[in-house]
């Protein structure tokens, strides 16, 4: 049976861990997780010892290209796309963020990067069930098998 993993921000968000169908919800504080969103932050994150680069894009721009993706691949940095970053935005900003995420995910697929789709929940109401995250992956432009893979696969060093 497939096991699903998620990354959340606080202990409170793990309240419904088993109910939502996850094998384990990893705490962001336990990982070397760095937030992207600008060219400087992305470059710095992929060049230093980082496990996960969270949301390399922002509503204002893509800031993620094949060069950054290649360095991330060489240094075994997982690129994570979070639901929380989308939920925190509204209107046009959310539309732009979603579009940039789709483009960045396309680059990740082309460059064969390690990708995760996570909730990165701030509280218990920010968490979503495993198959909803698969749905989010499909919304971001993945096929269903790819979306299942990015939610269920946990990369070396994360657990």
């Amino acid at each position: 049976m497939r096991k699903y993993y998620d990354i959340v921000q606080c202990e409170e968000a793990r309240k419904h861990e088993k109910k939502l169908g996850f094998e384990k919800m990893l705490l962001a504080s336990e990982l070397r997780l760095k937030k992207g969103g600008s060219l400087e932050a992305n470059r710095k994150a992929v060049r230093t010892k980082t496990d996960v680069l969270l949301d390399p894009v922002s509503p204002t721009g893509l800031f993620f290209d094949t060069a950054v993706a290649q360095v991330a691949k060489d240094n075994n940095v997982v690129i994570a796309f979070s639901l929380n970053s989308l939920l925190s935005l509204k209107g046009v900003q959310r539309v732009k963020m979603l579009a940039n995420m789709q483009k960045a995910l396309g680059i990740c697929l082309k460059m064969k990067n390690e990708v995760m789709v996570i909730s990165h929940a701030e509280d218990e109401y920010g968490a979503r069930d495993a198959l909803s995250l698969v749905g989010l992956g499909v919304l971001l432009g993945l096929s269903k098998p790819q979306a299942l893979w990015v939610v269920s696969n946990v990369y070396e060093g994360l657990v």
Partner: protein
Amino acid sequence: MKPFPQTMKENRRYLVFEVIGEQKFSKEEVSKALWKTMFSMIGTTGAAASGFWIIDFKEEEQKGMLRCNSEWLEFIRGVLCFLTEVNNKKAFIHIIRTSGTIKKAREKTGL
């Protein structure tokens, strides 16, 4: 009139869901929140094409059932992630089970 060909008939999927929130919500409140999310994410045409419809909601259990086309199933799951509040209270939708028939969905979930 010729009958509608079976091959062109849409395959439906029934999703049993649970609303987890700060308080218990009425059917009307949940319905309003679901439709609002659908319209904001995929619009009127998307909602029409997906065959989205709320079938049932039991207020005591906070569980309900909705319907969509099989081709849109993953998409609808993704869209429902964006529901963050019902009647200005924090809440989210947990999809318990997906089924091809209402009968099976009710049997397996006790709805």
